């Protein structure tokens, strides 16, 4: 049994798939930065950004609504911005009383809140698209060649490799518990909450110990193959004319969004 729950890559042969991963990573970062920098209520720019996403979705062959369907996981995180509804001074729109305090929603607060939600929603879609059209090792590779510190990229690639192994390990632990969670005939089972908590705690401890020991073995395997404290990679990617062209067009689109967002 393998767990593949974290793999988000969708195989394909579109022009977006075959783009150099560095271009994809750069455009994604530029797009997210641009969203973050857009002023509140820049509706035209937000709309342009969404059109940009729709077009890239379409070009990737995954379907226009691909990222939209997967983007809703980001909403709970956007709710962290809910305090701006009450904390920005402006004309009051609505007041209610809760827990002996008055809360007033202002128009400026509402504008800021809606803008933050839209910004994060657009950015998340771009990130979803990036990992859907780029194999994860290539994303890490691109980061490495874009001079992201090696410590970070190494941690990310080990995380990616061993997330699956750990998930399998957890699955085996859970299965072993289930296999022994029997009921005597005619009696209830399961034990008290405290007992169950202790079992879960032991399992977490087991997982930590196993991972710790595994890290030792992995390190030995690396040493055996000549690791001396610095990870080396091969420069396997080459820029093609199409990479320059599509990268350039994307950056121009992002600049247009910025201009559209700032012109009154």
């Amino acid at each position, binding site marked *: 049994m393998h767990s*593949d729950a974290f793999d988000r890559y969708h195989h394909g042969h579109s022009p977006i798939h075959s783009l150099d991963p560095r271009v994809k990573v750069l455009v994604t970062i530029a797009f997210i930065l641009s969203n973050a920098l857009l002023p509140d209520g820049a509706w035209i720019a937000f709309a342009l950004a969404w059109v940009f996403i729709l077009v890239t979705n379409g070009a990737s062959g995954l379907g226009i609504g691909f990222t939209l369907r997967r983007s809703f996981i980001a909403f709970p995180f956007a709710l962290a911005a809910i305090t701006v509804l009450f904390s920005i001074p402006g004309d009051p729109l609505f007041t209610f009383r809760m827990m002996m305090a008055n809360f007033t929603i202002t128009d400026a607060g509402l504008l800021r809140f809606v803008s933050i939600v839209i910004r994060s929603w657009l950015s998340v879609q771009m990130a979803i698209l990036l990992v859907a059209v780029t194999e994860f090792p290539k994303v890490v590779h691109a980061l490495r060649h874009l001079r992201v510190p090696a410590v970070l990229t190494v941690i990310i*690639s080990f995380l990616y490799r061993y997330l699956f192994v750990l998930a399998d390990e957890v699955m085996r632990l859970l299965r072993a518990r289930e296999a022994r969670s029997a009921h005597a005939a005619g009696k209830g089972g399961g034990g008290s909450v405290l007992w169950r908590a202790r079992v879960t705690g032991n399992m977490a401890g087991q997982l930590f110990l196993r991972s710790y020991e595994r890290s030792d073995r992995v390190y030995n395997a690396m040493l055996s193959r000549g690791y001396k404290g610095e990870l080396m990679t091969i420069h396997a990617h080459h820029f093609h004319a199409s990479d320059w062209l599509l990268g350039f067009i994307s950056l121009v689109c992002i600049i247009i969004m910025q201009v559209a967002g700032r012109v009154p």
Partner: protein
Amino acid sequence: MTDIVSVKDLHYSYPDGHAAIRGVSFNLCEGDKVALVGPNGAGKSTLMLQLNGILEGRGEIEIGNMRLSRDNMPVIRAMVGLVFQNPDDQLFSPTVFEDVAFGPLHMGLPEAEVFTRVDSALEAVRMSSYRDRLSHHLSVGEKKRIAIATVLSMNPSILILDEPSAGLDPRARRTLINLLRDLPITILVSTHDMRLVQELFPRTIVMDEGMIVADGITKDILEDEKFLTEHGLEKP
């Protein structure tokens, strides 16, 4: 035949004081295919980890006429290819290519050479079409073969494998046996698979409680049923 590995009076104790290796001496000739057998906890894996300096004990280890020391450890690690028991420990890179390229890259070889080494190593284990696959999507048998390729790409003089046939189905085991038989290098294999020993290795070393209790022709050792039982082994 020249000795490629020579071990003299090796001792090793774990940090907790437990003595795992207690005076081991043996040698391997070039082209030897040798089985290392013994019960769990006999010190087989500990011994293997010392042959390329991952663990450092007392005693003398010579690889290809070089005495193992901190200075020549990088050279020796390229000569001694160690394949670990669990391929998930050995395959730590996201893709097969990156894993097989890891050794050659860290030996400081030029890129073109790295690419040819990767290709020929994958060819040797008949896994060329797996070059761009993700390691976690492979079966155990495939992972084991890739794990061997990750070491072959370093062009080792000696291949050391820990439990290569554990957890394999009969077909994967057969593929592995054929692969090991055809590899033209010195091989030392630690295993509990006595049928594998019988089939593949002319010479066997038996370890128990940190010491070598027998070192000789496989056929003779496997015939002595009483001796095998004494050391937690079984006649195939």
